[in-house]
C-alpha cells in the first residue's frame, strides 16, 4: 500500500509579518524604555537630594557633637602669646571656628597622643571642581603652645559644595547672642558660650541654596582647671 504524503506548509514568517513584528517590538520597547528612563531619572534625582540631605545632616551632627566636647584650659602660660587651648570664631561668608576638645581618638599605638586636640572648621576651594567651595575639618594630633596652622593633623572634606556657614554663640553672662567669640588676645573671654547655633547653607542638586540649622550645648563652659585649694 502506498501512502500519499501531503505537501508541507511553508514554515516561518512572511517579510511583512517580520516587519510588523519588529515595528510593534520597537514601539513597545520605546514606550517601556521611556517609562523606565523617566523613572530612573526621577530615582537619581531623589537619591541625589537624599545624599545631599544626608551629607549636610551628618556634617551638622558631627559639628554639634564635637562642639559639646569643647573646653578651655586654665593651665596656660599667660606670659606667652600663643595658647594651647582656644575657642576662636571669625565671621565672614563662611565662618571659621577653632576649638580645643576632649574627643580625640588615639589611633596609633605608642603615638604619644592623648584625648585632647584642636578641631578647626574652615572653607577651601575644591581642587578639581572650579567654583565649588568645601567645608573642611582639620584635627590636630596634640595641643601645643604654637601657631595652630603649624600643628600636624588630619584634614578632610566635612561637607562638599557649601555657600555659607554662620555660627552664633550664646553668652549666658550677658544673655545675648554673639557672632564672634575669642578666648585669645588681651580682651579674650575666659569662658565658653553655653550654646552654639550653626547655620549651614549648601548648594543642592538643582544648584539652589538650602539652609540647615542646628544647635550645640557646650558642657564645659568654665575653664578646666586644677584647683587643689578649694574645699580643703
Amino acid at each position, binding site marked *: 500500500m502506498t501512502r500519499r504524503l501531503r505537501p508541507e506548509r511553508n*514554515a516561518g*514568517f512572511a517579510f511583512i509579518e517580520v516587519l510588523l*513584528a519588529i515595528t510593534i*517590538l520597537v514601539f*513597545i520597547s520605546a514606550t*517601556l524604555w521611556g517609562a*523606565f528612563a523617566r*523613572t*530612573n531619572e526621577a*530615582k537619581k534625582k531623589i*537619591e541625589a537630594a*537624599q545624599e545631599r540631605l*544626608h551629607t549636610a*545632616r551628618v556634617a551638622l*551632627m558631627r559639628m554639634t*557633637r564635637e562642639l*559639646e*566636647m569643647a*573646653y578651655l*584650659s586654665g*593651665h*596656660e*602660660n599667660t606670659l606667652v602669646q600663643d595658647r*594651647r*587651648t582656644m575657642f576662636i570664631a571669625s565671621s565672614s561668608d563662611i565662618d571659621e571656628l577653632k576649638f580645643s576638645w*576632649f*574627643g580625640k581618638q*588615639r589611633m596609633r*599605638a*605608642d603615638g*604619644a*597622643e*592623648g*584625648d*585632647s586636640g584642636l578641631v578647626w572648621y574652615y572653607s577651601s576651594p575644591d581642587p578639581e571642581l572650579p567654583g565649588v567651595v568645601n567645608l573642611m575639618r582639620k584635627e590636630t*594630633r*596634640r*595641643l*601645643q*603652645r604654637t601657631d595652630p596652622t603649624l600643628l*600636624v593633623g588630619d584634614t578632610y572634606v566635612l561637607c562638599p559644595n557649601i555657600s555659607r556657614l554662620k555660627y552664633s554663640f550664646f553668652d*549666658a*553672662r550677658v544673655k545675648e547672642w554673639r557672632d564672634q567669640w575669642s578666648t585669645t588676645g588681651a580682651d579674650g573671654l*575666659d*569662658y565658653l558660650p*553655653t550654646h552654639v547655633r550653626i547655620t549651614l547653607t549648601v548648594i543642592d542638586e538643582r544648584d539652589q541654596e538650602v539652609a540647615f540649622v542646628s544647635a550645640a550645648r557646650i*558642657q*564645659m*563652659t*568654665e*575653664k*578646666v*582647671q*586644677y*584647683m*587643689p*585649694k*578649694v*574645699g*580643703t
Partner: protein
Amino acid sequence: MNSRSPRFLAVLRDRFAKRKQRDRQSGVALLMTITTLTLMITLVANFTYDTSIQMAQTANARDELRAHYMARSAVNLSRLLIKIQSRFVEPVMAQAKSLLSGSLGAGMGISLRVTDYAGPIMSFFGGSKESSAMFGSLLGIDTTEAKGLGVANGSMDAEITAEDGKIDINCGSGVSVPGNIGHRTLFREITSLLYSPRYNTLFEQQNSSGQFVDRSEIARAVIDWADDDEQKFDPSGSGSGSEDYRYDARKDRYYAHNGSYDTVEEVAMVYGVSTDLLEAFLPYLTVYANTDSKRQCRVNLQMIKGPCTPLLVGLIRAAAMPDPLQPPKDPRVLDDRTIYPLASILCERGSVTGFDDINTIVAVLNNPAQSISREDPRYEMMQSLQGINLTRQDLEQVAYVGAPRVYRIEATGEAGKVKKKITAILDTQRPLFNPLSQNVAAEQAAGVFQYWREE
C-alpha cells in the same frame, strides 16, 4: 489491545497534529513578557535595595539621636545622685561617725554610697517597663499607674566612681623644690604602683625611640611634664640637671606641657609611657584634686571600688617606704605573695562597703588572720599569712579617708543597634567663675563639669 490498531494510530495522529499547530506559534509575546518582567524585577529589586539602605540610614540616625539623649539623661540623673550623696548623705554620715566614735570609740565600719545604686535607678527611669516594675517592687512602690517611668525604645545605664580614690598626677605641678612634699609623695606613689615584678615585661621592651625606660625615670618624667620648671625632678633633692626627654627629636615633634595636665590621657605623651603601660595603669591615675586637707597628694580611700587591688598594693608599698630610694622597714611589703592577698581583701571590702576610717585598713594589714570570715575560701591561707608592720601614721602619709569631691560618670544610652557612651567628670566643690543663672548656689551644688567626652 494491539499497539498498531487503527484507534491507537488515530490518537497518535491527533497528538502530532496538535504539536505541529503549537510549534507554528513563534512565542514573540512570551519573549516580550519575559523581557518586560526581567526589567521590572531588576527595577523593583534596585528600588527595594536603595529604599532599604535609606531606611537603615534613617533608622540609624534616629537611634543615634535617641541613644545620645538616653546617655545625657543618665548623666543628668547621675548628677542628681551625686548631689544627694555630697549634700545629704556625706554630712549625715559624718555626724553619725562623730557620734559613734564619741560613744563607742569606733566608726561604723561602712560608708553609705547612694551613687553605687546608679545602675538600678537608671533602669527604674530609663529601662523597660518590667525593670521599672521590678525596682518599684523592691522599694514597695506600685509603678503600674506611674507615668514617665521606663523607656519603650532603648535603655540607659550609668556608673559613678570617685576620682579621689586615684593617684593625682597633677601633684607634680608647681615648681620642683626640695621641700615640695606633693612631688615627693607622687614620686613615691608612682614608683610603688609600678614596682611589682609582674610588670617587669613592660620595662623590658624598647619604647618607640628604641630606649629602655625604668620605673623611676617614668615617675620623674610624669612630674617633669607638669611642673613649671625645666629642671629634672630629683627625689634625693640634690638636683640632676635640666629636663631632656627629647620630645622635639621625634618625627612629629612636640614639647612638654610644663603645666598641670588637662586630662589624664595626656600622660600618654610623657617620656616612657607606652600604650601597654597606659592600659595597665591609667585606671589608677587622675588629674583632679581631692579633699586632702594636708594637700600632700594623698589618695582618698573612702570610695575605692572595682579592680583596685594593684592601686592598694602600690599605696601600701608607698606607705612602707618613706624614702623610695631606700629599702622598706618591713621587707615583706615587696613580696607580691604577701601583699596581693591582703590588698585583694581590702579591695573587695572597699568595693562593697567602702571605708569610713583608715584604721580599718591598718587592722587588716596588721592582722590578716582576724580580718576574714571562716566561710571565705581564703580563710586557711590568711591564717598562715603574717601581717605587715604598718602604722596608721605610715598609711596616712599616702592615703586618707574623707568625703569625695570629684566624680566620674560613665553613662550609656542604647537604642536599636546604636550605643552611645558619655564620660563626664564632675567637680562638686569647684567655684563658679561664670555662673549661668542668678541662682549661683544651686548651680554650684550641681557641680562643674571638668571633662565631657562622647563616644
